[in-house]
């Protein structure tokens, strides 16, 4: 059985001054999988998300999504193609309530920029409330995003991305900045939501416990290349990975 290749990166290269973030990166994301990208700090993992979403342009190489080249497109176009992004530091509309954040996303997704209908009365409202249920934050629906603790904000950030009904969700350290006691709870919620919505996901991660428990596949990004990829147990047992990435 061969799964469809959703995202296909070939020969990506980008450097910032003397720092080489990518130097010939080839990476495929297969439909339905949860792919974790691990690697030393500053290796360029976030740069990959920035390239895949059009925020940065690589100096060489291409990114294809469902066979269509997206390398030179802007973030908003790539969003419309079906790639959504959640951020390491949640990027929310802090003056808006949680449900309003989702409704703005829904309006953006449907292109509903009507002038005379209230945001709060959009037909997508009940759908968005269900989404809040799915990520277990219905209780804060009417709180301002700016008032929430970091853990909740992370979930809102992901819910906003899911409101766009993406095929692929790119996440940058979904549990960073969250108390370690909450990490598993948040990932459990998140993974259940992704499975339910049948969203393929890529997440950059530092915490090897998270990788072992939640990823289907791991790719090791180091020295500007994908050094190794495969099932978590196999990759994390590799002696070089253990030394360079995990630091044991």
């Amino acid at each position, binding site marked *: 059985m061969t799964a469809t290749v959703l995202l296909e990166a070939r020969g990506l290269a980008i450097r910032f001054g003397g720092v080489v973030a990518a130097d010939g990166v080839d990476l495929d994301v297969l439909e339905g999988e949860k792919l974790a990208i691990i690697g030393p700090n500053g290796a360029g993992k976030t740069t990959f998300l920035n390239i895949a979403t059009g925020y940065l342009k690589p100096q060489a190489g291409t990114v294809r999504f469902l066979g269509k080249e997206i390398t030179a497109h802007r973030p908003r176009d790539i*969003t419309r193609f079906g790639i959504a992004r959640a951020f390491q530091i949640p*990027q929310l509309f802090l003056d808006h309530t949680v449900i309003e954040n989702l409704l703005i996303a829904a309006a953006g997704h449907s292109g509903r920029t009507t*002038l005379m209908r209230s945001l709060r009365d959009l037909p997508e409202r009940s759908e968005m409330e269900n989404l809040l249920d799915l990520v277990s934050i219905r209780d804060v629906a009417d709180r301002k995003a700016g008032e929430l603790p970091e853990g909740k904000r992370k979930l809102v950030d992901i819910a*906003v991305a899911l409101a766009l009904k993406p095929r692929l969700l790119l996440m940058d350290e979904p549990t960073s900045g969250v108390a370690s006691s909450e990490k598993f709870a948040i990932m459990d919620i998140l993974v259940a939501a992704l499975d339910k919505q049948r969203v393929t996901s890529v997440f950059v991660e530092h915490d090897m416990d998270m990788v072992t428990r939640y990823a289907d596949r791991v790719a090791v990004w180091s020295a500007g290349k994908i050094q190794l990829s495969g099932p978590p147990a196999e990759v994390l047992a590799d002696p070089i990975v253990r030394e360079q990435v995990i630091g044991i």
Partner: protein
Amino acid sequence: MASRSPALAWMLAAVVVAAGVIPILIPSMATLVVLILAKGIVVLGIIILLQAGQVSFGHAMFFAAGSYTAGFWGKYLGVGDLMTYLVVGPVVATLLGLLVGLFVVRYREIFFGMLNLAFSMVLWSLLEKMFHLTNGADGMRVPRPTVFGMTFSPDNFQYVLLYLTLAIAIAATFAVQRFLESPTGNMLRAIKSNETRLEYLGVSARRILLIGYVISAGLGGIGGVLVAVAQQIATPEFAYWTKSGEFVFIAILGGVGNALGAFAGSAVFELVRFYASAQLANSWQLILGVVLITIILFAPNGLIGLWKRQRAARDES
């Protein structure tokens, strides 16, 4: 924001009654009330842009576009009808807004503000220098127009103008409040809080800002027509940067969180100017300055914010 509290509705009703009744009791106030309301309509446009965190220091250009539409009409096409002015003026301002907007929505904050100022000063110098067309610094007279084809005596006309302006102001307030609650209006506020995320939702922030800009230009045009008709003249000063500053001043004075703030600010501004300039002919700006500093220090959300805060305090106790 988006306040639908009954208290606000009562306040709106009180403002409407005051604006409608006071000029009957004191006829000399009629023109002043028209000016207050007309400028409030312009300031609604400033408030729309402030939702996105953008301050235009050149919005007087759209105000002048409305005023000069009436002026040109009177000079070249003969005395027109007020209704014609109120359609053509805003259309001209809207088209100018679209043209200028296509440039300025690419910029933010100080660059946005200054670019607007630059465009408005270009218009000002054109109006001032092309005196064969525009009568230069003397400005263009705006003879008293007909209304729906009817001619009114000066006394009656000022009441017709007053109630028409009041009706437009009410309609504009509701329309703007509605717009701010719409998805597009909320996206304008989202530009202020997180433009990057907005782009990551597949939304063009520039397009959203352009929609807000064009609407606000149209409101400037309506206000411009009404002021020109009330004062029977349009001068290049209408496009000058101090005029733009005045609109921003009024917006901050009234409070930008609510459409009603525009009229509260405009009323205080015009009344202070009216009475202060009568008492202190050469230093009325000083008094306005003190008023603004006081507002910024003690009521950063403007008069409307002050009023809301007091209500909140009272509800708690």
